[in-house]
């Protein structure tokens, strides 16, 4: 993996800590990670807490409008935010998730599944937080192949060597 750093003309490295597991927040780490890899950077992504779910074989990402007044969906030429009291009703999260996925497909935004596959294909190093596996009782066999296990020291070692560090 480290050899990748030496085959480009101006190789840099990036480390990303992904802590969030909702459909919307799955995007920033995977977009930046795959793009950096496409730009010949050596990329390591460390998945912890809710971010760990992004490594599950079976991805069923959801999102919620709850607690997010900044989320305004385009609707009939306007933008609408959903009041929390409505966002909390049964089925609303499911509807909002479906709406977001439709909107993304329509606008040519990649699915998280596709971006994750691109990350694997471009040799992005994927590290699952061992403590999170223990805490939430997730088995490493639930995760996609090629994932390494590690802890804080692993993440910090990678970050110390990286030119660019993101926490998301």
């Amino acid at each position, binding site marked *: 993996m480290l050899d990748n750093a030496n085959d480009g003309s101006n190789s840099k490295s990036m480390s990303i800590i992904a802590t969030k597991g909702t459909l919307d927040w799955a995007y920033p780490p995977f977009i930046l990670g*795959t793009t950096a890899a*496409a730009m*010949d950077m050596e990329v390591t992504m460390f998945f912890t807490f809710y971010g760990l779910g992004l490594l599950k074989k079976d991805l069923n990402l959801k999102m919620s409008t709850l607690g997010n007044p900044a989320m305004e969906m385009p609707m009939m030429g306007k933008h609408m935010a959903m009041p929390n009291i409505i966002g909390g009703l049964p089925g609303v999260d499911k509807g909002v998730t479906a709406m977001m996925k439709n909107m993304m497909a329509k606008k040519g935004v990649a699915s998280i599944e596709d971006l994750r596959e691109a990350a694997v294909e471009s040799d992005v190093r994927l590290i699952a937080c061992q403590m999170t596996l223990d805490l939430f009782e997730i088995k490493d066999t639930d995760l996609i192949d090629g994932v390494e296990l590690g802890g804080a020291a692993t993440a910090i070692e990678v970050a110390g060597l990286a030119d660019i560090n993101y926490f998301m």
Partner: protein
Amino acid sequence: MADQTLDAKGLNCPLPIIKAKKALKGMSPGETLAIESTDPGSVADFAAFCRQTGNELTSSEQSGDIYNFEIKKS
């Protein structure tokens, strides 16, 4: 004529870059890749991509809603 072409129309960030990288990977140094995109963000992004990777952006033009790029593999 470019050695290879990539139709990235309708794709949004970062797919044009990722698909371009994939295409370049299978090409030889000196060969050219022509890319068609509809993503306005790809104008800045292909320039940045080429600066970072050392590939040469030999052309970047807009015609209507289509952005045309040509990259020469380093």
